[in-house]
């Protein structure tokens, strides 16, 4: 099960991030966001990186981080994407991309893999999102469009299973609407499950007291507060 040290360690990391970054610099690109997430993952953590942008986090983990990657299709200690010549059709990640195996890997079947997720054994999972609410509700599986074919995969299992759920997303949609919202308008993936949101403009902690910006990039907290309907905690 592993001791409950994620919280303490990653909060400490985030605080130092915040001190360095509040109001500083420019908006982050997706690789910078991934680097930031990677920096907040404690040594030796068991982590699931969702399909899409979260996968980039792996590229920013230090070689000696000891972080163990889980893929929900039945593996722990997954290695990087397979290069030409390494491709094994029996070895893919959850996005069906060929990957590799690190020493100390273990394989297990789907029910065991999702028991591991649902049972709260993963320290962190990192997911993309359409929307996150101020209460930590997550919407990332369905746009709600009437003609959309619903497809959920493992998103709901990850959302409610991991000890900590980190979201990576741009803060605003292409139409300019915020994706951090008082109430999700898209169908939910999980209720009250998000702990922290990494965006191009800021990092937010979702706490029982409310949402707090712990770092901003190229904007001030005041400017953000003006553009968001979710109230931001100050101090």
């Amino acid at each position, binding site marked *: 099960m592993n001791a409950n040290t994620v919280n303490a360690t990653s909060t400490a990391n985030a605080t130092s991030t915040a001190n360095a970054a509040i109001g500083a610099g420019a908006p982050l690109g997706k690789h910078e966001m991934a680097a930031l997430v990677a920096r907040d993952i404690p040594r030796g953590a068991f982590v699931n990186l969702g399909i899409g942008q979260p996968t980039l986090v792996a590229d920013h983990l230090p070689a000696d981080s000891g972080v163990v990657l889980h893929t929900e299709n039945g593996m722990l200690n997954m290695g990087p994407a397979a290069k030409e010549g390494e491709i*094994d059709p029996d070895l893919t990640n959850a996005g069906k991309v060929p990957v590799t195996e690190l020493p100390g890997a273990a394989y297990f079947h789907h029910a065991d893999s999702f028991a591991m*997720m*649902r049972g709260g054994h993963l320290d962190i999972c990192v997911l993309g999102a359409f929307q996150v609410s101020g209460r930590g509700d997550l919407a990332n599986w369905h746009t709600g469009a009437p003609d959309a074919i619903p497809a959920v*995969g*493992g998103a709901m*299992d990850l959302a*409610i299973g991991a000890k900590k759920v980190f979201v990576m997303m741009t803060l605003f949609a292409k139409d300019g609407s915020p994706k951090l919202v008082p109430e999700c308008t898209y169908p939910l993936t999980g209720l009250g499950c998000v702990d922290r949101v990494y965006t191009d403009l800021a990092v937010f902690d979702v706490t029982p007291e409310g949402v707090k910006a712990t770092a901003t990039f190229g904007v001030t907290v005041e400017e953000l507060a003006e553009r968001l309907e979710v109230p931001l905690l100050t101090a």
Partner: protein
Amino acid sequence: MTVRLCAHADEAVAGIEDGSTVLVGGFGMAGMPVELIDALIRQGAKDLTVVSNNAGNGDTGLAALLAEGRVRKVICSFPRQTDSWVFDELYRSGRIELEVVPQGNLAERIRAAGAGIGAFYCPTGAGTLLAEGKETREIDGRTYVLEYPIKGDVALIGAHRADRMGNLVYRRTARNFGPVMATAATTVIAQVREIVETGSLDPEAVVTPSIYVDRVVQEAQRA
């Protein structure tokens, strides 16, 4: 009873009846029992319910079975993919039913069927669209959704090796749904790359014991 070692995939799928619920292993192509699905297409059973993680890709395999109009309903976690045009067209034109199930609930409901569990309370999906209309219960302050087993008449799975008794081992992430599906169907049919002598698999590493396996066929491309 004793496993049947089949000479050909057509022999392995013989007798699958119209209206059957068919569990189909695989996650993407890993563990997908391609030759068994092709044999099922030839075999002709229709009005099927297919339980699988996806709903077919491209124009072959499950997609081809769907394209023939042989599947009444799909129970899966992720039908929509870049190359799921066969399913997409059937679904949009109202010619196929869909039950979307979170991936872990799919695995656990299949396991429950194999393990004789009548139903279970699961936190996944609570408060979402996919739990609408389902019974819920608060346990220790958390909301759980009551989920029922998914049992198959037939399971078609891909494994790496079988011994002559029907013990199965898988390889890497191709294991995925195979082991739970093997516990949850009346008739379990496995496609393997190699059939080895009994006694040559490590008893500590057997993932699906022979008790679960009814028919085994070695892949033709390797036979």
